[in-house]
């Protein structure tokens, strides 16, 4: 089953914060976050492992709640360059990095 992401879309003014959530019905080994700009390849942001720490990439951080099989991506002081569609990808134990991606959250940053 595909992980569920929320919200589906969000519009922010530059400098505002946002949270994107990813929820799975399966027991997970890891959660991966990618950002994809229109017409481009998805680009890796970070991985959160079961039992691991909260991760950070520039002003973007993420957490993984193993009990709830949920991950959240936190974007603080958003920049224009953060615009794009964010996908979480979930991996089950012994999954060989095979990811099941969510439907994505489209983030638009306006000046």
């Amino acid at each position, binding site marked *: 089953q*595909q992980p569920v992401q929320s919200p589906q879309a969000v519009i922010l003014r530059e400098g505002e914060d946002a949270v994107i959530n990813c929820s799975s019905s399966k027991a997970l080994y*890891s959660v*991966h976050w*990618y950002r994809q700009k229109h017409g*481009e*390849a*998805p*680009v*890796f942001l970070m*991985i959160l492992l079961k039992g691991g720490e909260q991760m950070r990439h520039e002003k973007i951080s993420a957490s993984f709640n193993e009990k709830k099989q949920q991950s959240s991506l936190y974007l603080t002081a958003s920049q224009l360059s953060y615009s794009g569609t964010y*996908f979480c*990808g979930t991996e089950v134990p012994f999954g*060989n*990095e*095979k*990811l*099941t*991606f*969510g*439907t*994505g959250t489209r983030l638009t940053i306006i000046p």
Partner: protein
Amino acid sequence: GAGVSQTPSNKVTEKGKYVELRCDPISGHTALYWYRQSLGQGPEFLIYFQGTGAADDSGLPNDRFFAVRPEGSVSTLKIQRTERGDSAVYLCASSRGTGELFFGEGSRLTVL
């Protein structure tokens, strides 16, 4: 080039035709993945190679789809008797085993 290269970038074909899509991964990456992405959706797993062998092909939708990686580097995704529902962007990714997938820009397939 340093990234994952996919060719062709665009392919338009007629229903029923045969199509091959090529992926050239980052040098030294032993793992290679094919995903398919429809408009407005997240990438959908098709097949995973570790070296030359297909370690997991559970995402291939039916037997019209086949992929090879004969020398453990370049991979070809082959689609027989294409259908309109096969239209999508086919993404290839490679990995060095750290968990990070490096995606190519994809091959956009349109079946008329």
